[in-house]
């Protein structure tokens, strides 16, 4: 009971506080799951990113359209060989307790991120930094060798392993946030408890009830505080989408970050203009175990891919109109231009099926002599619908699919151990670069569940990442993508959509391919 009293008191005090200011505006956001932590080094989900990105800010941050813009750094310079970045920190940046944010807070955060003792799940995202990977793997124990130096309080120098065109974009990620060294030194692991935590973003967290909500109020010490229009954000934990939609209709939520797909039509009719359904930098795909006969035959894989009628999946099976994917890299990746499409994209579906039948017949698979194969997916209604539909598309070709589903943890554990014939996977971009998707097919990396391997492909990706010139780099990547598609390294199915419902009261919500909408760009009118 004590806890309730305490939180009641805290909320009461806050209400008084807010009532005191002229017009307190709270944004009520349906945020899905419970955050793992408020410590940026322990996060991995988009619902955690929404909180972390409002309360912390890196050298570089996102504008309203999720493009990288200067954050805590006011500007930066790059050496001629594009491996040394020198950041100049903004004047007047400080933590929510008033202490200034210095270059050593960034240095401290990067060292902590890579320190194996801290076991940061997402450390690998910043492995472009010199010696970061070696330190994280324990091969180097001397932190001084990390490619991050605090030259003085206002200047931070970061050296990379090799030029990386997406480094600036990756710095917007929560693994690039500074941490309050003075608080962590004083409180140790407890620095992140709600009563101790200090942050440098537009908001500071003041209340966290696990299973209920995180409340963050405007941080007056934030350099851009004058432009922040919403006084507090309540990130509400609620896994039931249908209940969230009812709450939205009753005015209890301003933004829903997800909604039940089967109600999309109803939403369009009854809440016109409020559903924001836009392409998202993510790919839904099936992997095929290319080490196992007959799937080691590229023609068999191609036939499977051709026979998937992608056009019906978004509009009819899912009902939200996901766009069919014929490329490996989703459209809209920075500096990449249009992705390469499979060369049979424009055939009619009948022709595709005829061709697929021919290819399979050559491999000795016909409806009379069917191939039995297992298709596995993690337990979820949408995955199931898609699997059932695709199995029925494959059936006339002589592929007898056995559907096999397990919960998410088991699914990925088994896929990584190579226990699959055909399996469902998905990927959401970590940063705005085609490399993020192409790397999924490189030889020997964990995410390459199908164990597809092609030396030319690997070489092109490697060369592309060394290339300084953006256009030439894109060209190398395009070639690599073409190889992957020609060999049917995997079966792209659809590009993800971000699905938000935004109340007409909210202004400044810009749709973008990364589904990042920092609260400081939003406004709420009554």
């Amino acid at each position, binding site marked *: *009971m*004590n*806890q*309730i009293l305490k*939180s*009641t008191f805290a*909320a*009461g005090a806050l209400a008084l506080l807010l009532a005191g200011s002229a017009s307190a505006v709270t944004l009520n956001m349906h945020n899905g799951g*419970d955050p*793992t*932590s*408020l*410590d940026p080094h*322990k996060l*991995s989900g988009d619902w955690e990113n929404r909180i972390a990105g409002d309360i912390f800010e890196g050298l570089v941050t996102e504008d309203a359209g999720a493009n990288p813009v200067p954050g805590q750094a006011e500007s930066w310079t790059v050496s001629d060989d594009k491996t040394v970045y020198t950041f100049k920190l903004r004047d007047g940046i400080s933590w929510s307790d008033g202490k200034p944010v210095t270059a050593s807070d960034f240095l401290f955060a990067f060292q902590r991120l890579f320190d*194996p*003792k*801290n*076991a*940061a*799940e997402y*450390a*690998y995202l910043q492995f472009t930094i010199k010696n970061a*990977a070696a330190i*994280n*793997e*324990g091969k180097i124990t001397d932190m001084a060798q990390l490619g991050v130096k605090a030259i003085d309080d206002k200047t931070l120098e970061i050296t990379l392993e090799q030029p990386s065109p997406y480094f600036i974009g990756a710095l917007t990620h929560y693994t690039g946030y500074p941490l309050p060294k003075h608080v962590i030194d004083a409180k140790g692991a407890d620095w*992140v*408890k709600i009563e101790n935590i200090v942050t440098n973003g537009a908001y500071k967290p003041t209340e*966290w*009830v*696990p*299973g*209920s909500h995180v409340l963050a109020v405007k941080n007056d010490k934030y350099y851009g505080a004058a432009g922040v229009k919403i006084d507090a954000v309540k990130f*509400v*934990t*609620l*896994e*039931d989408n*249908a*209940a969230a939609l*009812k*709450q939205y*209709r*009753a005015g*209890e939520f301003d933004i829903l970050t997800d909604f039940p797909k089967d109600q999309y039509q109803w939403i369009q009719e009854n809440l016109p203009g409020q559903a924001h359904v836009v392409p998202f930098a993510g790919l839904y795909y099936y992997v095929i175990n290319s080490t196992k006969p007959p799937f080691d035959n590229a023609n068999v894989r191609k036939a499977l891919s051709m026979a998937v009628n992608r056009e019906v999946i978004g509009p009819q099976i899912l009902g939200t109109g996901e766009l069919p994917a014929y490329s490996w890299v989703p459209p809209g990746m920075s500096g990449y231009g249009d992705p390469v499409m499979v060369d049979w994209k424009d055939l009619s579906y009948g022709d595709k099926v005829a061709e697929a039948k021919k290819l399979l017949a050559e491999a000795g698979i016909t409806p009379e002599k069917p191939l039995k194969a297992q298709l596995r997916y993690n337990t979820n209604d949408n995955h199931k619908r898609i699997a059932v539909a695709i199995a029925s598309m494959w059936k006339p070709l002589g592929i007898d699919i056995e559907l096999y589903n*397990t*919960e*998410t*943890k*088991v*699914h*990925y*554990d*088994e896929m*990584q151990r190579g226990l699959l014939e055909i399996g469902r*996977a*998905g990927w959401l971009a970590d940063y705005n670069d085609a490399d993020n998707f192409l790397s999924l097919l490189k030889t020997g990396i*964990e*995410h390459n569940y199908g164990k597809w391997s092609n030396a030319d492909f690997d070489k092109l990706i490697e060369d592309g990442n060394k290339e300084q010139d953006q256009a030439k780099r894109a060209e190398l990547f395009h070639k690599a993508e073409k190889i992957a598609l020609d060999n049917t390294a995997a079966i792209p199915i659809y590009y993800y959509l971000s699905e938000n419902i935004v109340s007409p009261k909210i202004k400044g919500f810009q749709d973008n391919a990364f589904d990042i909408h920092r609260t400081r760009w939003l406004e709420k009118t009554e």
Partner: protein
Amino acid sequence: MFSYAFKRLLSTIPVLWIAVTLAFFVLRLAPGGPFDGERPLPPAILKNLAAHYNLDKPLVEQYLIYVGNVLQGDLGPSFVNEDFSVTEQLMIGVPYTFTVASLAIVLAVIIGVAAGSIGAIYQNKLPDYMIGFVILTGLVLPNFLVAPILQLVFGVKLGWLPVAGWGNGALRNLVLPVIVLTLPHAARISRLMRGSIIEVMNANYIRTARAKGIGPRLTVMRHAIKPALMPVVSYLGPAASYLLTGSLVVETVFGLPGIGKYFITAALNRDYGMVLGTVIFYMVLIIILNLLVDVAYAFLDPKVRTR
């Protein structure tokens, strides 16, 4: 009485130990671990995580460390919700669940006993049939159906009550979840009560009371209810432990931060620490409630007391 209760408590220790041991090892047999997910982690990082949580040690050693910690009252870290230990999470969630659950229990007993008694007094007459009908509805409608309907009617359409949320424990926020939790239990209790009173009414001492000229209503109130409560009490033990461990559906639909979803989500997340913590918590709760039921028996039935 006290030595009896104490002995009962002692005998539960081995049960608790067996349950924890079983849960510990069976959990590890399940494929997949706490760090498997949509994004595979590089081996070096997995190694760091395993070392952080002692998962790199031999299983028996992990078990000994865990049991050692539990004996010192420490349920260990949660693998998924890292800012709160298992004990802290339970401490935070329990008040919410207990508030809603105890209201539901009290309400279910009041409604159930009243409805059951009325049904018994007017056995096979109109009030009995009417109550029977309402109760049957309460029994057959599952809570995952009742909850959204109530939300839609009272929250969205009429706008009288909040659709979901804790709202700092305000009564208006509690109404819907408590009703959803109360309905099936009130229904069952009233069935038990009705049957039990009808049975008791055939007993000799009731006939004696009636023969002395006491009216049917007074007979029920004064002489029948107390003995008739026995089956209700034995039902209340399991029902209370069911309610107090929280309801996944009600907590998810109404967005309450209780402990009901811990067990399920922890198992799905392979949050080893949290699963074991909830197992221990549930066991202790069930043991205490069963003890209370036994004590209540002794209070209600002199035959049990003297035995």
